[in-house]
């Protein structure tokens, strides 16, 4: 194995993307050259072979969420799926119903799409979340009106990994005759999902979050009761008219295989990851005081930890753990001084939000890597606390909130 270094760091950013599983890549390869046909070509064997592969993949994608293959629309990824679900439903039903409910901690692609819909005179309710990151069903019910066409609530949050009460949300939406869309990009393969049992009408999936190739995803669109959409991409009418454009059989096959593996191995993988997480946290907590987990500690996927290391600034900390590829909880790296809107929404104060790391691990993370990572973090946090004026004040018993700071 190559030595761990700054240029070859331990990968702990599985919520951003995952490596393609070698078994997935193996299945994809024939579809680049030997079986290169256009799956929409109806007149010859090249087309038929490609079409058969795409349809087989569609079944596998459908299977992991308990859906029928006919309900799966392939897209370029979860961002497109979310755009299609929100804009598609909003516009189709807009004459009679012009209200959509979502929540403040959704992925940017949902929030930004909603902002655009607002510019087109749709009304959007952005539900707050509780300190544990979950929405309050009572708030959801109170926000519903006879003008509400759609509720869009993510299954698992990309920053803090918390699992929303999807089944309860689905039940409530169904009872009110409101469609329910869930962005399941972070949920598929990590928690069991069943569109019928959970009354989900639309569901977005991303391939590259589940060890499949980048550039493909899917939107599940329920047929009974039927959900209708105005397409956002027009053309040859592929994907039941909901998403025109030639499909890539290689990407479809890879995505399908990724779903199949995830479905088969989820149970074992989750129990292995739970153990990794527990071991990692125990080590950190033994050596470091004043660390806080953001988001519900129980109702979360086992492969995500969002941790605030009080009195140590996140970006400075990232520099101290350069052999680890993690994501900072604060958005300081991106030209703004704003901290994460997700952490803000769960009530993490901005001084603590600036001290956060998102640590995501997964299928290929080893126990050795987690142990090494814990040690690197401990060393860096201890070093930075030793040079932190805030840590010094805290040790002297000074409440940093009692000081009048001059903002800048």
């Amino acid at each position, binding site marked *: 194995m190559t030595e761990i270094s700054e240029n070859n760091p331990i990968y702990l950013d599985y919520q951003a993307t995952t490596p393609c599983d070698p078994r997935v890549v193996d299945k994809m390869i024939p579809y680049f050259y030997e079986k290169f046909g256009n799956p929409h070509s109806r007149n010859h064997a090249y087309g038929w072979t490609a079409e058969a592969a795409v349809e087989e993949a569609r079944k596998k994608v459908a299977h992991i969420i308990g859906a029928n293959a006919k309900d799966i629309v392939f897209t370029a990824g979860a961002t497109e799926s979310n755009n299609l679900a929100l804009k598609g439903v909003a516009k189709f039903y807009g004459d009679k119903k012009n209200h959509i409910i979502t929540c403040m901690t959704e992925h940017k692609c949902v929030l930004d799409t909603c902002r655009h819909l607002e510019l087109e005179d749709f009304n959007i309710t952005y539900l707050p979340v509780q300190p544990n990151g979950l929405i309050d069903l009572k708030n959801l019910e109170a926000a519903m009106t006879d003008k509400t066409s759609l509720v869009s609530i993510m299954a698992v949050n990309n920053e803090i990994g918390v699992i929303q009460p999807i089944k309860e949300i689905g039940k409530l939406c169904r009872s009110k005759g409101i469609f329910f869309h869930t962005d399941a990009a972070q949920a598929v393969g990590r928690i069991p999902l069943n569109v019928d049992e959970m009354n989900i009408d639309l569901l977005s999936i991303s391939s590259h979050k589940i060890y499949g190739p980048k550039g493909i995803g899917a939107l599940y669109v329920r047929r009974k009761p039927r959900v209708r959409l105005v397409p956002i991409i027009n053309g040859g009418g592929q994907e039941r008219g909901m998403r025109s454009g030639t499909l890539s059989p290689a990407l479809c096959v890879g995505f399908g295989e990724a779903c199949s593996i995830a479905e088969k191995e989820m149970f074992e993988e989750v129990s292995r990851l739970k153990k990794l997480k527990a071991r990692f946290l125990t080590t950190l907590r033994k050596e470091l005081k004043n660390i806080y987990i953001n988001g519900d500690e129980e109702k979360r996927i086992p492969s995500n930890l969002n941790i605030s290391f009080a009195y140590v600034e996140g970006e400075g900390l990232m520099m101290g753990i350069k052999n680890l590829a993690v994501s900072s909880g604060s958005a300081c790296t991106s030209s703004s001084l704003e901290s994460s809107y997700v952490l803000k929404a769960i009530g993490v104060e901005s001084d603590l939000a600036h001290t956060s790391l998102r640590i995501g691990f997964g299928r290929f993370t080893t126990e050795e890597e987690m142990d090494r990572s814990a040690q690197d973090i401990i060393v860096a946090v201890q070093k930075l606390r030793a040079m932190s004026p805030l840590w010094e004040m805290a040790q002297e018993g000074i409440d*940093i909130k009692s000081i009048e700071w001059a903002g800048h």
Partner: protein
Amino acid sequence: MAYSNKVIEHYENPRNVGSLEASDKQVGTGLVGAPACGDVMKLQIKVSDDGIIEEAKFKTFGCGSAIASSSLITEWLKGKSLDEAQTIKNTQVAEYLELPPVKIHCSILAEDAIKAAIKDYRIKQNS
């Protein structure tokens, strides 16, 4: 984001980390920035009877550029008179450390810290 080698060097080997006795009459303390903004610098100077900065110490909560900026100014401050110290500008810090535009505020904070420490020292002397 790529940091300059100078930022990395100061981050990895910060100079003059620590604290001086804040109640000492010869010591001036500057505490600038805010936790909510992600940067807090504490700069302390110890001034000799003939008005020369003989010691400078810092503690910083912030990104690598903030730590490097404060480390750098402690080096620059030592041996300077207060009037000379007053002339240190954020642009000099930013230029030396090759800070990108989004990190200019770190150098501004460093300049503010110098001014605050000198002010604190002068208030103490005059009281």
